[in-house]
């Protein structure tokens, strides 16, 4: 026991202040083993050290940090993946869609990988640590990594990649994550293996912002010239052999991949692009493809019942936001917004819309999947009587008519109809305006977008391993995605505190305050967050999927 304690002490001496705080939280029983692994990985504690400390702690021994089991795979073979086509050219700066981000994750490599368990796994970064104020982060870059063209990767490449995305002149999609945290030029290479990042504001979850969770951030060479869709030069597990726009991307295993334990068993993989979910599902059933990436639960009924198919299921923070314009009648009165939220029967939505592949949410982006979520805040449930009383008190007892705008995709039109019928029960008439995706989002800036300008709308949001983006862009007063036009200085202050906080118990305390405030204000209805669901044929194993629908095929292959 003394030996064990002295080893723990030795390990603790090597950890940062934040790391030691996380260890204290765990040993005092304030956080679970799973949350310790997750928070520890953010604080830069290495996976072996985390595993050792977890085993020494109060709870029973965990499985692998990734939380996923493996099957025996034979080397070789060719697999076909049925996936959505990228909506645009495959440009790491611009990709903002499911098809595009999946392909980037096959060819590219990230500083760290945010898997289904939300525990960060080191990739290009071997380890990381922060200053005590969480404003300066230092990453140790792994030696021996080469780009697909043979050029060695150094910290200069990593710094250049981060600065490329952080520069507003380049219009990177990653700016949605970096806003207020990271400015252009903030990343510097101290030497070939050390990267330092100075933040504009403290961020306790910053490693997530540079991980695969920020899917645009595959590491590019320092001399990147904007030609990724021609060169596909990164350092991921697969190299592109051909790319046919709108049709298919073909890859072969990267035999010089840095992690020798994870050189893909598959020789080659085709990513066949399908514009229609039903076609992909039929292609899997017809064995034209062996893997289908994420499909909507509403489209996948046939697969859930098919004994010849294996479902890949991953908890995630994917969700829909129903915004109500806080600055426009009739939603200027928060009682009206609360009434709209109270009209919904959330368990029925989860079952009816998503076949049970979802969890009920509580009108804030603190979903149950996040360790920092304060679960002591009471869940909002359907209450039609109270909803009617609130409308009466707000002077809307005779009801009103509003238009709900959204786009045609996944279960969203059905969700809109269910909101319409729920609202009818409290005397509110909703007219639906369902358009195509491009029309709904428009130019994604205020004044040029149905999404951002409509009185009421449903918007789809993809998974993030930490709720920072959901707390910021759609809800803070100057948020670029603030479709609800919600302006609340108390909320803004709480979010700034939350984002700056590194330790889980403080995060949870602030989360409770935010959850309570959002329940009271209800600028946006968060009714559910749904699982990421994919499928494979039975003879394919070790296919992993993240909450934002990236595939990890580094260990995947044929079982027989």
């Amino acid at each position, binding site marked *: 026991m003394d030996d064990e304690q002295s080893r723990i002490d030795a390990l603790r001496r090597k950890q940062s202040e934040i790391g030691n705080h996380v260890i204290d939280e765990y040993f005092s029983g304030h956080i679970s083993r799973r949350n310790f692994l997750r928070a520890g990985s953010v604080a830069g504690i290495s996976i072996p050290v985390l595993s050792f400390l977890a085993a020494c702690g109060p709870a029973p021994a965990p499985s692998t940090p990734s939380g996923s089991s493996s099957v025996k795979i034979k080397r070789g073979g060719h697999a076909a993946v049925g996936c959505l086509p990228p909506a645009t*050219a495959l440009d790491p700066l611009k990709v903002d869609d499911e098809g595009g981000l999946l392909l980037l994750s096959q060819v590219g490599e990230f500083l760290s990988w945010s898997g289904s368990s939300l525990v960060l796994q080191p990739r290009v970064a071997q380890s990381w640590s922060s200053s005590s104020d969480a404003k300066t982060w230092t990453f140790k870059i792994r030696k021996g990594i080469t780009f697909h063209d043979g050029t060695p990767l150094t910290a200069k490449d990593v710094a250049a990649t981060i600065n490329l995305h952080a520069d507003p002149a380049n219009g990177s999609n990653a700016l949605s994550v970096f806003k207020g945290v990271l400015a252009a030029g903030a990343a510097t290479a101290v030497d070939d293996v050390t990267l330092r990042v100075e933040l504009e504001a403290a961020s306790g979850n910053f490693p997530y912002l540079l991980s695969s969770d920020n899917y645009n951030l595959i590491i590019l060479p320092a001399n990147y010239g904007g030609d990724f869709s021609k060169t596909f030069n990164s350092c991921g597990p697969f190299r592109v052999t051909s790319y046919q726009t709108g049709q298919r991307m073909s890859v072969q295993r990267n035999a010089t991949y840095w992690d020798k334990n994870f050189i893909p068993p598959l020789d080659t993989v085709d990513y*066949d692009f399908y514009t229609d979910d039903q*076609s992909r599902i039929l*292609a899997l059933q017809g064995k034209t493809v062996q893997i289908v990436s994420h499909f909507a639960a509403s489209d996948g009924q046939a697969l859930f019942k098919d004994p010849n198919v294996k479902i890949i299921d991953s908890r995630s923070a994917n969700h829909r936001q129903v915004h109500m314009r806080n600055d426009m009648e009739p939603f200027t009165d928060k009682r009206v917004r609360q009434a709209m939220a109270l009209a919904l029967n959330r368990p029925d939505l989860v079952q009816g819309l998503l076949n049970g592949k979802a969890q009920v949410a509580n009108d804030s982006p603190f979903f149950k999947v996040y360790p920092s979520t304060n679960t002591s805040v009471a869940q909002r449930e359907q209450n039609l009587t109270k909803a009617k009383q609130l409308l009466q008190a707000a002077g809307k007892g005779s009801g009103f008519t509003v238009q709900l705008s959204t786009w045609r995709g996944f279960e969203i039109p059905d969700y809109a109809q269910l909101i319409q019928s729920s609202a009818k029960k409290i005397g509110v008439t909703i007219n639906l305006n369902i358009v195509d995706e*491009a029309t709904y989002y428009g130019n994604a800036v205020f004044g040029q977008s149905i999404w951002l300008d409509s009185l009421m709308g449903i918007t789809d949001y993809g998974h993030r391993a930490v709720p920072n983006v959901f707390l910021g862009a759609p809800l803070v007063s100057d948020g670029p995605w603030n479709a609800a036009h919600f302006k609340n200085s108390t909320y803004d202050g709480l979010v700034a505190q939350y984002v700056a906080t590194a330790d889980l118990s403080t995060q949870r305390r602030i989360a409770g305050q935010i959850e309570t405030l959002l329940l009271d204000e209800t600028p946006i209805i968060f009714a559910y967050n749904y699982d990421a669901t994919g499928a494979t044929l039975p003879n394919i194993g070790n296919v992993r999927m993240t909450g934002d629908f990236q595939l990890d095929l580094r260990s995947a292959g044929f079982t027989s």
Partner: protein
Amino acid sequence: MARFLIRRIAFAVITLWLLSVLVFLGAHVLPGDVGRRILGAFASPRAVANLDRQLGVDKPLPVQYLNWLSGAVRFNFGSSLAYRQPVSSLLGPALLNSLKLAAVAFVIVVPLGVVGGVIAALNRGRPLDRIITVSGLSGTVVPEFVSGIVLILLLGIVIRLFPVTATAPPGSGALTQLYYLILPALPLVLVLFGYIARIARAGMIDALDADYTRTAYLKGLSRRTVIWRHVLRNALLPTIAVIATQTGYLIGGLVVIETIFNYHGIGQLLFTAAQQKDFPLIQATVMVIGVVYLVATLLADITYSLLNPRIRLGGAR
């Protein structure tokens, strides 16, 4: 004949010009800024304005139209907004794919439809006629997405006779490509068979009842000779027109079939371009489909006039 041809081509050119104006205006009355669409929500207004200037989309509409038209007549349709590559590099392969699928469907349905119609007419009022007519009509009224899915489930998944997608693996030979195209061609055959057979049957019945047929019989010619030499030639004239009008549909109108079978033809390309508001691609694709329709109609007119001098001479007058 020359004047007839010139008139027809002149009409085709005017129609195409009108189509180009409509397509261009249709694409430009929709709200949205091209530069913003390409650079995204987070680009600075200055960067957006610079790109708009580079692309020429800040110029007056008539100037933009003339620029676009001058490029289009040289087959330069500009660059796709979504894919950032020349439109022609996307359009060419898609058109070729559509032509392949249309060819396979044609090869199956045209002989089948014509023979079906002729057999039905020759057995007018008998059970065989009823079977052909009713089954043809049933196939025509079933939407392609229904017959397509049913055929995939039956022939692709249960029996596993054909692959469920239409796109053959890269580098496949002609026979493999043909094999992959048979299943997606079948719903088209179902849709078109009834239509072609019905027209062929009607034409045959008219020709069989015509005075010249009775005269031919009275001259003592055998039934086979009468049908081959006198009836068929006249009976199939309307069928040719129908087949020609379906050519445009078979090449440019197969959005549903191409989507179900994941086939990268011009219909799917147009569908994707419309989803992404990729205006240069939409304009070019619609124009190409328009050209296909017009060329098919022109060929039908020419064939029709060659087989029927009255049309030709009427046109000449």
